[in-house]
């Protein structure tokens, strides 16, 4: 009896220690953001300090940060919306008519380094004077979100029994009607999961935005990176900015936790 109690106690101690490791980095980031510059430069570091929201306030006040958040939001939303519009019908037809070669080519597209896409697009957008526009950012973010959303949705459409469609076809529905009225509602979980993941990918995207955005369209990862170069010593401000930009993906994760891993792996399982 006593032995099993000790065993359980040890087990949960281990679990808690392991679970702290992913969290402690976020916690440290958040706490650094709550400290004044004085407290952040103290040696040894202060564990007890009076928290202040000054850093968060100054991030939003000084650096056009709201605008950058808005830019990230616009780019990610459009990238996901366009991917769904084009990707859903394609995923359905790949799943239903077993066009596996297209599936494989999507997987290969994922292996191509982003920079292979970036060089041509940079040259084109420069010539068209479209650098620092939403068009340039959304187009390049589609390179990530479109194949990804197709991949996930192929899996979801494959799991829909064909009898469901056939029944509706006999009732006189066209393919398009069947698709919109019957299939889309059935796969809504997949649409939600893939949209959220696509949004996170676009939100986190750094390389395309680093080259193709400018003062008008800068997205948050680039803004934070630029922030580093001239605020190197302002740890509180940097940590507050880092906390702010990584919060949306973390919150979104909570809505898709059941399907997230399945979503992230679905592309590679079959290829």
């Amino acid at each position, binding site marked *: 009896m006593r032995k099993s109690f000790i065993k359980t106690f040890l087990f949960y101690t281990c679990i808690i220690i392991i679970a702290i490791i992913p969290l402690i980095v976020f916690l440290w980031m958040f706490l650094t953001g709550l400290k004044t510059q004085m407290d952040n430069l103290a040696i040894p570091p202060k564990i007890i300090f009076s928290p202040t929201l000054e850093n968060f306030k100054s991030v939003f006040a000084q650096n056009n940060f709201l605008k950058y958040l808005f830019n990230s939001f616009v780019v990610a939303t459009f990238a996901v919306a366009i991917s769904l519009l084009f990707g859903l019908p394609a995923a359905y037809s790949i799943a239903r008519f077993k066009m596996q070669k297209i599936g494989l080519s999507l997987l290969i597209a994922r292996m191509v380094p982003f920079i292979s896409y970036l060089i*041509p697009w940079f040259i084109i957008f420069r010539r068209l004077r479209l650098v620092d526009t939403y068009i340039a950012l959304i187009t390049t973010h589609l390179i990530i979100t479109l194949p990804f959303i197709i991949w996930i949705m192929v899996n979801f459409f494959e799991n829909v029994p064909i009898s469901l469609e056939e029944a509706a076809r006999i009732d006189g529905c066209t393919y398009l009607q069947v698709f919109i009225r019957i299939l889309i509602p059935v796969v809504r979980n997949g649409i939600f999961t893939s949209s959220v993941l696509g949004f996170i990918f676009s939100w986190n995207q750094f390389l395309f935005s680093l080259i193709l955005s400018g003062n008008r369209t800068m997205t948050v990862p680039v803004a934070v990176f630029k922030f580093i170069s001239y605020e190197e010593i302002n740890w509180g401000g940097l940590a507050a900015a880092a906390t702010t930009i990584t919060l949306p993906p973390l919150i979104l994760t909570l809505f898709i936790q059941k399907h997230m891993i399945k979503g992230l792996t679905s592309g590679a399982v079959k290829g």
Partner: protein
Amino acid sequence: MGKIMKNRTKYTFALPALLLMVIIVAFPIAYNVFMSLHVWFVASGSGPRWVGFKNYITILFDKRFWNSIRVTILFTTGALGGEILIGVLLALFFNRNFKGKSIIKTIFLFPIAATPVAVSLIWAMMYNYDLGIINVLLKAVGLPPLLWLADPKLVIPALVITDVWQWTPLILLIVLANLESLPSDPFESAKVDGASTFQTILFITLPMVKPAIIVAAMIRSIDAIKTFDLIYVMTQGGPNIASENLNLYIFNQGFSYFRMGMASALAIVLFSIVMAVNVFLAIIRNKNTT
């Protein structure tokens, strides 16, 4: 009639997306191959000049290229090795029923979703020589503080640690999901036969989850070989070029020196490496499943 309709639907549903993919994905790749056979300094104002395979030959004798290959190999094997080892061990440990299991799973999703630029920035602060928490902890247990990102010998291990922190959870959760879906019969009969826990894991559990481990390795390898954000934010390839992997080197050729032809040729090399590693892993996996 039915068949023609079916064919038409097949293509009308897929066509818009396929066209878009050709424009945004296939065309740049073709352009990239074309550019790799040219010399072009974007800054010079003159157009690209055809040079055949000269860029590729230059690469072969380029010391900085071989340095970047070395960095890529060290970083990828370190990160992938650490992530698979720790991820699989933790998955085996978590593979039982206990209170709070779903909370644990949620916690491990956070590093995966976190913005890499933010994560890299915070780790760079944690590695700071004077004020970083890591050196403070080292000093607290009586060890000397380390230069981490400024020491050419330590910079790759430091980057690997950050990558392992961020991506071990992915391997852990993929393998754990697979473990939870395994049938219980083989484990029961092993118990009846008197196998120890260690024997059961080694001879029954691990062979059964091997395909899942390989899939996880494939997904991670694609991204680890191409790592950019993490290194660019934490070290910019430094000190000097001690942590410049192939992707960073391509970026520098293209967007620091504006040698687009050279950068394109290097990008083709990087793609070939990612492809080769994945074909290799796919062959191992297919051998295992049949």
